[in-house]
């Protein structure tokens, strides 16, 4: 069969888009929420109540490093990796992380920064906070497998963008066109307008998303020249000292606090992390990382680094100093870092974050309308793509649409509720929150599979609206903190989270109203729903 370019692109856009849209919606929605990961973490850890944390002095930081080192030396004297995270705005506790050898899992403990005593679960609201959304966004909490899934979906996104532009018949004539209240026409208009108007954002965010993991997605060069060691490749590229292999000779660790002071002096920044590789071995090295300063050189795009200093742990010799806001590695790495910066919005502060947030939400809505449009078209008239199985496949797509769109929104909103309702003294609380997030998502899938599709949409959207609008009340009931108090103390992060929740709640209410108004015509369009509605009405279910 001979086809025109537009016809074949239309096929590609429809089916390529459909099979990836559910994953892509999850990537875009959680990525968009992840733009505000810090304010979300701030809300989840109730930091509004603690108020501003006073900047620490160098003596306090030295003392914290001493306490951290003492803890690490006791739990894992010979380790592949130690890390001491100094208290800061993000977390007022002293945290230590370690890994006994390369294959062992990472472990962590939270310590009191003044006494070094290990904090028991329940002492604070332990949570992954907004980082959960960021990890969902790039790896679905599935490690390397997740990174590859996200990469494949992002490629599909770029294919869908290009094919979508080719398929769009009147990109300029329809540039400003949205005709509401016209069924399928309106869904198509909405999908087109959301996509076309955010096109620059869509291309940039998808392409830069891929280039972040370029060394993972395109490993051939590193495999051929560096035996597959990314570490060795990057050390060479960014003119850093070569990796130091384990020597298997015991060597006592020096005091880390003086090295931290040296590091701070060398890079001119307050330290945020002190990391030791191969602790207790003759090859041990200590790296002092500076704290990221969001306001320093805010108007530059590339290389907004925090700086770091590297020391030989045995001879105490300085191995390397990388100053803040500098990039090494030549134009290749600078280009790549610029793209990273474009993806992470590490510049321009809140105004830029809001622009990315709005564009990201529009992109999510574009994906959702695309998935819904697929079914709206076929509810009217089956295209019979799957022969006798068509009705069953359509039903499956409809169920996945509900669960992937409304269900994911529901799970995201529920995550905030879980954070407030889960008891504080649960072990591994942060992980438990995420497990419950997935449980809610799975429940939404079961619900979508059991209910007629229109009812499933309506009920899940109603639940989303309820959770969003109720969030400020929940916070008041569980922590005694509320919107007015947050606004009064000028805590824009807490207030921002709750006001946004109310905003989204109102949007979901508007959608529900629209669904109710459209329901009679929908049932005419859809004999199947009319039948189930009739069964509902006579109490058959």
């Amino acid at each position, binding site marked *: 069969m001979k086809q025109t370019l537009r016809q074949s692109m239309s096929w590609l856009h429809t089916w390529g888009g459909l099979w990836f849209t559910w994953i892509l919606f999850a990537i875009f929605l959680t990525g968009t929420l992840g733009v505000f990961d810090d304010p979300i973490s701030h809300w989840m850890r109730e930091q509004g109540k603690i108020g501003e944390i006073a900047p620490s002095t160098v003596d306090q930081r030295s003392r914290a490093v001493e306490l951290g080192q003492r803890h690490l030396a006791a739990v894992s004297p010979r380790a592949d990796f130690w890390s001491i995270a100094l208290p800061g705005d993000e977390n007022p506790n002293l945290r230590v992380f370690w890994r006994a050898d390369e294959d062992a899992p990472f472990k962590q403990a939270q310590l009191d920064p003044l006494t070094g005593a290990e904090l028991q679960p329940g002492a604070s609201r332990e949570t992954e906070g907004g980082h959960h959304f960021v990890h969902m966004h790039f790896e679905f909490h599935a490690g390397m497998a997740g990174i590859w899934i996200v990469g494949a979906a992002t490629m599909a996104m770029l294919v869908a963008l290009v094919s979508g532009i080719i398929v769009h018949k009147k990109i300029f004539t329809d540039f400003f066109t*949205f005709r*509401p209240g016209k069924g399928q026409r309106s869904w198509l208009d909405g999908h087109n307008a959301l996509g076309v*108007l955010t096109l620059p954002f869509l291309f940039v965010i998808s392409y830069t998303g891929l280039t972040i993991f370029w060394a993972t997605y395109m490993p051939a060069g590193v495999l051929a020249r560096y035996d597959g060691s990314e570490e060795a490749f990057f050390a060479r590229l960014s003119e850093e000292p070569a990796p130091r292999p384990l020597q298997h000779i015991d060597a006592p660790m020096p005091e880390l606090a003086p090295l931290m002071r040296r590091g701070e002096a060398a890079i001119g920044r307050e330290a945020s992390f002190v990391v030791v590789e191969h602790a207790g071995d003759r090859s041990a090295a200590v790296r002092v990382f500076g704290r990221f300063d969001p306001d320093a050189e805010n108007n530059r795009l*590339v290389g907004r680094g925090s700086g770091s200093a590297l020391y030989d742990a045995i001879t105490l010799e300085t191995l390397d100093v990388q100053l803040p806001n500098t990039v090494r590695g030549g134009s290749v790495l600078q280009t790549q870092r610029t793209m990273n910066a474009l993806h992470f919005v590490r510049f*321009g502060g809140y105004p830029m974050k809001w622009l990315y947030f*709005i564009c990201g939400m529009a992109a999510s809505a574009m994906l959702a309308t695309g998935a819904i449009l697929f079914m709206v078209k076929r509810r009217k008239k089956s295209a019979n793509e799957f022969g006798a199985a068509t009705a069953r496949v359509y039903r499956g797509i409809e169920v996945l649409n509900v669960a992937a769109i409304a269900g994911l929104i529901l799970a995201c909103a529920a995550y905030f509720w879980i954070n407030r309702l889960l008891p504080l003294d649960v072990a591994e609380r942060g992980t438990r929150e995420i497990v419950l997030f997935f449980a809610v998502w799975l429940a939404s899938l079961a619900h979508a599979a059991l209910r007629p599709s229109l009812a499933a949409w309506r009920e899940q959207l109603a639940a989303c609206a309820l959770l969003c609008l109720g969030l400020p009340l929940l916070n008041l009931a569980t922590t005694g903190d509320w919107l007015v108090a947050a606004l009064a103390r000028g805590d824009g992060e807490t207030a921002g989270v709750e006001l946004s929740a109310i905003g989204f709640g109102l949007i979901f209410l508007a959608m529900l109203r629209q669904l109710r108004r459209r329901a009679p015509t929908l049932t005419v369009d859809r004999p199947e729903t009319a039948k189930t509605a009739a069964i509902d009405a006579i109490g058959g279910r």
Partner: protein
Amino acid sequence: MDPHFALYLVFFVCYAGLLALSLAMDRHHSQIRHGKPAPLLRRALRLTGWSLLALALWLCSLAWGWAIGPVAWFGLLSTAALGFVFLLPYAPRFAAWLAVVGPLLALPPFFL
């Protein structure tokens, strides 16, 4: 220029530019005013529209520099367009007046 003020100002410059470009099209001209635009008016509207979008880019460079300015410009262009396109069918007259009312609302702080 203060970035928050720039955000507000450039949003409305983009908005006005897009409004002018849409008024140059028959479909939207009849939505907001009546009938089709005369050829001369159409040309004037196009010129105004593109000039305003260029002005917006220049304002962005003043507020954020040439590294981040274009990023801000694209972002504001998208958000202004989204606002305009999804407001237009529900309140066409208001969507047009917003291009005037919006910037005026920014004035009072200057006289306080």
